[in-house]
């Protein structure tokens, strides 16, 4: 193909607006609003999730200020209730899901050598409907003037147990905002998941057999399949709740014979797999980043795939470990204890495979790799406290205490957020064309690490001392004060680290060194495109012969394809 062939003037004008020096703001806006390009949609997902990350982070800070001292009244009890509700809902539905879908959107087509997703328009629709869901949720703070219950944010907790959500106990519209926002985000999640599955199955480039797909793509396939069977039940439960609240049906109306426990089942049938929907993409990032910075191929590719699929299946049968305190009976308790413990087997396999990948490798301690190694250790600890909590009698003692809060924040922050930071340092050069500052990145890592451990290591202690979660304040003589003080001080470090990260992104975007197509000397297809990639990704659809197509290209004397 001749590179310097003249481009027809007409098409050049309509399509190469990229290269125009200055454009009107409206033009740029139009570009982003109407786009069906998976990369732009991915970036919008990520940007929107980052905004909500800051919002929900501020909510967390407010809660920590309130709890840092006994008998504090920094915020009102009502405001505190909506703070923890909004913090949880936002972090799960409007930070975790979108940021992971954003990376998936951006990376999956690039990694399998495709030019776009299978359904580009559906992709745009899914993004926008999740985005509007988030806006609707926060609109609840303002309400609409002249309406009953105007300006009331949801305050029923992120799992909104019945019968607290019934009209009688939650008048006004605050709970409706919560339900509707989650319904919208659920539609978006199912749409994107469908798109990712169809893309990985139908859009792979020649030679990209399932057994050659990058592990990231495999994990996104498992995550997306989980979305169908996990998010749909939540959608169904939200429809039931809407019917209860608007038409007067009795699904969760305990006075008419409805069951509050049924809501718990329905919610956790969603809620537990949701944790895996969030953590599997984090695993996915680790699967790409750890080998590249160890300069070794991933250890145990097949075992990794099998373990991921296994986690997907097992995670569907463990939900009631969130309900041990309900009193399910000996049979159900035993089943869910065992099922929960078994899930640590495939997870353990993954950890060992990562360690084996590191073993003997030539490890490059970039900021990205440091976050990934932090993830390995913290995820191990999170898993261990998870096994502790999976034992029913232990859970009876510590269920609904700060020990549980510490455990799942260890998973969500120590595991997922660390891996998301790692992914940013790794793929930001591809997305923006500029390198993030390594120096600032390492400062970010150490400050955030200190903050994380100050907060969440010590958070286990007040839990064991009996401090319940969602408590508004406490008396001075409980012995919890010193611990809460430490926890809150850690939050300041984490906020500082995050600010540094945001500054790093903005500074690097404008002033950072140019990345070039392949700054990490990596092996997957996205690094064979310019940074940022053109709208069509690949000028020529690639064909691959092994799991590391770029290794083959760089080392024609010893390609991987010889060993397949």
């Amino acid at each position, binding site marked *: 193909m001749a590179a310097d062939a003249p481009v027809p003037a007409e098409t050049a004008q309509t399509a190469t607006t990229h290269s125009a020096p200055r454009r009107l703001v409206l033009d740029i806006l139009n570009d982003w609003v109407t786009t069906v390009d998976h990369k732009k949609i991915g970036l919008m997902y990520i940007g929107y999730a980052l905004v909500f990350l800051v919002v929900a982070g501020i909510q967390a800070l407010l809660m920590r200020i309130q709890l840092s001292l006994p008998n504090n009244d920094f915020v009102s009890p009502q405001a505190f209730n909506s703070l923890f509700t909004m913090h949880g809902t936002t972090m799960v539905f409007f930070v975790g899901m979108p940021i992971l879908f954003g990376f998936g959107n951006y990376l999956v087509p690039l990694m399998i050598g495709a030019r776009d997703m299978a359904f580009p328009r559906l992709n745009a629709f899914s993004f926008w409907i999740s985005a509007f869901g988030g806006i609707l949720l926060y609109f609840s703070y303002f309400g609409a003037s002249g309406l009953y219950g105007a300006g009331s944010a949801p305050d029923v907790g992120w799992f909104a147990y019945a019968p607290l959500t019934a009209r009688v106990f939650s008048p006004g519209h605050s709970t409706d905002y919560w339900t509707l926002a989650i319904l919208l985000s659920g539609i978006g999640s199912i749409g994107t998941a469908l798109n990712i599955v169809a893309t990985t199955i139908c859009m792979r480039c*020649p*030679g990209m057999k399932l057994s050659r797909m990058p592990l990231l793509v495999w994990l996104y396939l498992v995550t997306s399949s989980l979305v169908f069977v996990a998010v*749909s039940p939540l959608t169904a439960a939200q429809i039931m709740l809407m*019917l209860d609240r608007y038409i007067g049906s009795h699904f969760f109306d305990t006075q008419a014979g409805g*069951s509050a426990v049924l809501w718990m089942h329905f919610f956790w049938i969603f809620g537990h797999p949701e944790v895996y929907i969030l953590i599997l993409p984090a695993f996915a990032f680790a699967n790409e980043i750890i080998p590249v910075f160890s300069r070794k191929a991933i250890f145990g590719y097949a075992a990794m795939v099998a373990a991921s699929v296994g986690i997907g299946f097992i995670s569907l049968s463990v939900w009631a470990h969130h309900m041990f305190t309900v009193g399910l009976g000996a049979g159900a308790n035993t089943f869910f204890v065992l099922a929960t413990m078994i899930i640590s087997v495939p997870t353990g396999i993954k950890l060992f495979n990562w360690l084996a990948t590191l073993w003997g490798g030539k490890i490059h301690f970039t900021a990205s790799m440091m976050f990934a190694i932090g993830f390995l250790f913290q995820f191990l600890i999170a898993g261990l406290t998870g096994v502790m909590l999976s034992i029913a009698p232990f859970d009876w003692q510590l269920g609904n205490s700060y020990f549980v809060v510490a455990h799942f924040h260890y998973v969500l922050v120590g595991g997922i957020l660390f891996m998301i930071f790692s992914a940013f340092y790794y793929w930001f050069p591809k997305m923006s064309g500029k390198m993030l500052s390594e120096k600032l990145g390492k400062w970010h890592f150490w400050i955030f690490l200190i903050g994380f451990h100050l907060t969440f290591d010590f958070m286990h202690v007040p839990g064991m001392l009996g401090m319940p979660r969602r408590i508004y304040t406490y008396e001075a003589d409980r012995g919890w004060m010193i611990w809460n003080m430490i926890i809150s001080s850690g939050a300041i470090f984490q906020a500082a680290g995050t600010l540094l990260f945001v500054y790093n992104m903005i500074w690097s975007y404008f002033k950072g060194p140019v990345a070039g197509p392949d700054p990490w000397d990596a092996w997957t297809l996205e690094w*064979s495109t310019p940074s940022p990639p053109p709208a069509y990704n690949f000028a*020529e659809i690639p*064909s*691959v012969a092994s799991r590391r197509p770029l290794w083959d290209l760089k080392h024609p004397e010893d390609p991987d*394809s010889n060993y397949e």
Partner: protein
Amino acid sequence: MSEAAVIPNVTTPEWELPSRGVVGMVCLIVAEAAIFTIFVVAYLYYVGKDRSGPTPREVLDLPIFTSVCLLSSSLTVHFAVAALHQARRGLCSLWLAATVLLGGIFLGGTAHEWYKLIVHDGLTIQTNLFGTTFYSLVGLHASHVIIGLIMLSLALIFSLNGSMTAKHTGRLEVLSLYWHFVDAVWVVVFTVVYILGR
């Protein structure tokens, strides 16, 4: 031009992947099946737990005729796809029309049943747990039938005005998949509500 990641001398004999329409529809069906499962579980969980009537045994009749209509519409839509595949557009229109008609009869049957339940038996969604779960489960299915009927009617219109050709067989097949799913759900709903639940 760029030879990015193109490995020379690699022959990929035939590289065929499944149709994205079919895969997408299968995914949608899995997600929808999960939603229906939750409603079915709620129905079974609450069946017989009512403190006041009416009970299913008192008011529900077996909708055998309309069920047969709905199930046989699965056959007719299959024939429509087959006819379009052979580029026999007139026949395709005929089978599509039959499908829409059979689906319409089913919907009419449901409307009639609901009318009887609400007006004669005084059972609404607010009456008791049976009403709550019955109307939501059957209503959820009926709403899927309505969506399917709208799509099938559009296909019928396109078929009649000649803008649907054998090239579009794939798309009609995806639609027929959805319709088969709607029918399959009815088998489950029928078994649960009208046989087990009674």
